[in-house]
Every structure is written in C-alpha cells, then in structure tokens.
C-alpha cells in the first residue's frame, strides 16, 4: 500500500470519486489533491522548503485543466529545479481520445501509464501489480 498519492484534477466530482474508489481498494493511506498544475507546483515548491511535508508516491494527472494543464505541469516538473522529485511516478488519467496525447505521454520518463477515466478498482489492482506493492 502506498503512503500518499496526489490527484491533480479540476473536477471536484472526479476527485470525490477517486477518493472513494481508492478508499475501497486500500491503495494508499492518504490522498491529497490539487485543482490544477500550478497549484500542484506550488505544493512541490513548498515541499522543497519544508522537509516535513510528506512526499507523494504517485501522482494521478488530468490533462485538461484551467490555469495550468497536465502537459504544462509535466514540462515544469521535469525541470532541474524539481529533480529531487523525479522518483515520483505519474499516471495520466484522462478522458481524452486524441491519439496524439497518448504518443505525447510517452515522451515523459516519469509517466508510467496513460489510463482512461473513470478510475476503477481493477485499474488500481493493475497499477499495484505493475508497481510491485
């Protein structure tokens, strides 16, 4: 079981759904959320300053968000200033059907999977098998 996961999604219903599904699957101890990429980056910046803040093991990332979308977040997150978080894995969780998005996601080393919404318990089982916990 993971310790903490971060959900980045602007839709409160999606977040609520994710929390409930994850709670049932015993996937992790704690869930934190950010409503867009910028908010998530602020959280990581804060983390850099304060070592006491718990670091998430996995990020579920939506693509289409206001202020800062998923791709932009990944571009920032890849940079040297966030290099201390590069062990954190990212799963893109989106309702997009554009085949280009799937191709694009493969360019990011930290993205380990590209899954369609909605999140399900089967999906979490598959992920925990894949990540080996």
């Amino acid at each position: 079981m993971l310790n903490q996961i971060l959900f980045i999604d602007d839709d409160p219903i999606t977040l609520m759904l994710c929390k409930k599904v994850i709670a049932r699957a015993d996937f992790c101890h704690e869930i934190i959320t950010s409503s867009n990429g910028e908010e998530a980056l602020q959280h990581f910046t804060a983390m850099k300053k304060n070592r006491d803040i718990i670091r998430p093991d996995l990020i579920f990332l939506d693509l289409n968000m206001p202020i800062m979308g998923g791709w932009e977040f990944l571009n920032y997150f890849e940079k040297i200033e966030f290099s201390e978080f590069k062990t954190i894995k990212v799963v893109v969780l989106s309702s997009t059907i554009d085949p280009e998005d799937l191709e694009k996601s493969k360019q990011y080393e930290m993205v380990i999977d590209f899954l369609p919404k909605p999140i399900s318990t089967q999906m979490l089982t598959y992920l925990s098998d894949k990540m080996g916990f």
Partner: protein
Amino acid sequence: MKSKTNQVILIYIIISLFVAIVSYRIAWHYIQPQHLYLYSFAKDCIFIILTGILFRFILAKNDNRSIAIFKQLKKTNDEIRESNEKYDIVAKATSDTIWDWTLEDDNFTWNKGIESVFGYQINEVGNTSTWWFDKIHPEDSIKMSIRLYSFIEQKTEKWQDQYRFKCADNTYKYVLDRGFLIKDESGKVTRMIGAIQDITKQKEEEQRLKLLETVITQSKDSVLITEAHSDKNQIPNIIYTNPAFSQMTGYTSEEMFGKAPNFFNSPKSDLEALQTILNAIAKKEECLIETLSLSKNKEEYWIRLSMIPVFNTENEISHWISIQRDISDDKKREKEKEQLIRELTQNNKDLKQFSYITSHNLRAPLSNLTGLLNLLEDMPIENQELQEILTGFSKSTHLLNETINDLVKVIIIKDNPSIKKEDIQIADIFENVFSQLSFQIELYKPIIKLNFANVSIINTNKAYIESILLNLLSNSIKYKSEDRKLKITIASQKTDEGILLLFKDNGIGIDLDQHRNKVFGLYQRFHNYPDSKGLGLYLVKSQIETMGGSIEIESEVNKGTTFTLIFKNKN
C-alpha cells in the same frame, strides 16, 4: 512575171532588129550581089548565133533570180512548219487549251486541248462563242463576261480570268484563261486568241491550305514559327506569328519578325524553364514548359509553351513551331484551389480538435457518472423504488457512454483520408498494442504466440495498423471461449501479392454461413454481448482498405477465427 516576159520579148525584138540592121549593113558592104544565097545563109547563121548568145544571158540571169526566190520560199515554209510544231509542243507541254475566235462571224475554234483536258469529242464542240459561254459555271459567267467585253472594247489592257469550266462529264474544272486581241489596220478588233490552263489541282490545294491555315489564324492559342537554327543560348528567330499571338502578347507580327521570342521577359520568368527550352533546341527535341511572362503593356500572364522541331525529308530541321496557351486563369484557379485546400485542411484540423475537445468534455462528466455508478454496485440499497431509478440511471449512462465511444471511433477513421505510410517493425506495433490493452491482458492472461521471423517489417500507417490490431486483439479477448484458455497466434508471411499477417484465435467464432456478407458491415452484431457495438470490424476493414490492403476472414463456430490481413506491395 508577165511584165518581165514582155520586157524580155521587147529587148529581144529591139536587139534582133538592131542585129538585123547591122548584119544587113555589113553584108551590103562586103558581099557581092551574086553571092546573095551565101550572104543570106551567113546572115541567118550570124543572127541565130548572136540571138542565141543573147538568150543564154537573159535566161541564165532569170534562172538565178528564180532559184533565189524558190530558196527564200522554202526557208519561209520551213520556218512556218517549225513554228507550228513548236506551238503544238508548247500547247502539249503546258496542257493549255487554245481557242481562236473571229469576232466578225463569231467563228470559234479549239485546239486538241478541248478533248484531252475537258473530254469533249470533236463533234461535240460547238463553233461559236455561245458554246464557250454555256460551259462556264453560272456563278462565274457574269463576272467573266463583263471583264471579257471590257477587254474587247479595249477599256482594259490585259485580260486573264479564273472561272469554272464544265467538262464533258458535267464536272467543273478551275481554269485560268489568258487572251490576246488581233486588230486590223484601222485598229478594229477582228480576232481574239486565248489559252486556257487547268488549275483545278492548284485551286484545290490552295483551298486545302486555306482551310488548314484557318487552324493557325483562327486558333485561340498563340502560334509562332521560328527559323531552324539560332546562336548558342538563344531561341531561334521568329518568321511567323498568328493573330492570337498578338492578342496575347500585345506585340504585332512586324514587331517580332526576325527576333527571338521574348517569353522570358518578366523578372519572375522561370529561368529553369528557359534552360529546358535551350537544351531541347540543342538536342533538337520537343519540349513543354510553363512560365510567367510579360505582355507589351507590362501585364503579367502565365503561359504553357511547347517547342516542336519540324524536319524535312533529309531529316534536317527546317523550322520550329511553338504553341503558347495563356494559362493565367488555370494558374489562378490552381492557386485558389490550393488556398481552398489549405483552408479546408485548417477547418478540418479545427473540427478534429473541436471533436476531440467536445468528446473530452462529454466524456469527462460521463466517466464520473460511470465511476459513481460503479461505486453504487457494491452498496446495498433498501428502497425498492430508488433501486429501480438507479438501475435506469445506470443503463442510460452506459448507453450514452457507448454512443459517444462509437462516434469517437468514426471521428478517428474519418480523420485523415490521405495517409502517410512508413516502414515499421511489426514487433514494435504489437508492443504498443499490448501496452494499450495491458489491463485486459493482465486480467485474462491469454497465451499469445508471435512469429515474425519471415517478415519483420511492413510498410503501413502506424496509427491505422495499431487501431486494426487493437480491435482484433480486443475482439479475441471479448469473444474468448469460456471453456478453454484463450490462445492467439499471430504470424507474418511474404507472398507475390504482398505481405500477409495472420491473426488466429481459439474463441467462440462466427457462423460465416449465415453472416459472411455482414461480417465487416456497420452496426452488425453476431453475439448478444452487452458491450458489442458492431463497429470494430467495420473500422478494421475501412482502415486496411484506406491503406490499399484487404482483409479476409475464416471462422468456425466454437473453434476460432482467423483474420488474414493483406498489405499490398508498394506498387
């Protein structure tokens, strides 16, 4: 001659009398009267001898004169005969038909030409001018007569005319008739002699050439003819331009005569095209180019220009012909078309983006609904009515989800009709497909055997082949048999036709006897599975056919299905 005879007799009498008197005197003086007989005899002898000598002189002189006259006559005669012969030969050689018209009594005679050229027998030929006039084509006769009488009345100096003359077989021949007048001492016209020349062939040739010429003169394409040769790196000089040339370029024939064509006079002219022409001229080959050109009043226009060498019988270039067409409108249309295509491509791209966004925005809340309903599945609901409402809610949500997924797939297949093909490793394609289906593969753990030893690379469109294999693979998983473990075999083969990809499973199969015609149809479902939408194989077929390939199916119920994908060779 008569007077000459009298003259001779008179001279003879005078001389004889003179001789008689002289002899008498001599005799009288020398001879005695008793010798009168002898005297008479001697006198007569002397008289005969003297007059004989005299006669000889006179006759000899006369004779000489006669011989001279006879010789003169013979010479004249020979000359006339020769002249006549010459006339006949000339008439024969020129095939001229000669006529001779005595105006006073209207006597009209023809030479042999009337028979040999026009086919009339001697007895058919009339001997008045009326017969002549009757044979002239009605459309020509009035004009011809006016000119002829104007000549006879000596109002005009020369007469020659062209008209149609009727032959014995009632056809008409074009003739050229030339005439001369013969006048008496008072200057009155007595005779007219004419020579008719058959010019039917020339006339027909002339008409044929005139007809052919209309092609050049009436053509809307600009036509020019140039000399055979030119200085190096120069188009040969113009010797003819048609009216369309002047219309198009604004330059008259006179302006361009003897100059090289100036189609490359715009700063924007295609100099590569000019080089093409010069190379073709050097090699004596025809060529076709397009360039921007400038008219005399500095207007730009596009031309398509051809240069064609014309060879004579000795296989040497006699001249070049060049045809130019103003293709400005074509070029404009082409540009408009390109612009239109650009706009349409952009529109299409926008629409595609729009459909992806719309689909995303529809799917996002829909996936929430699906997820929430999934949560409800594990929760016991006591209230019967609420349960019913939630069941309806769930069914409708799933239906909406399926419909949207259908539409999404149609969008993807219609997305890009012109597809790009590339050489792709088959193994790489499967790696991608498996990763997209990794969730299901992990779940059902089918046995998958791959054999790409024969062919490892195919030339195809990456997105399509992935979609096709994704469909086939997910179908195999979806329609696996519950009785046995799913086994999928995929192998590649090379044939004359192209590359085959065999995709075989041991699933529930399709009854082909019943469904063969509908297998690849739209919205065809053969199994009552809730998540079957009847779209997968339709998409597969559309995609492989878009790439120029084909798909075949073999299947047996409860044994399995084999799909054969055929990727045609590049050509």
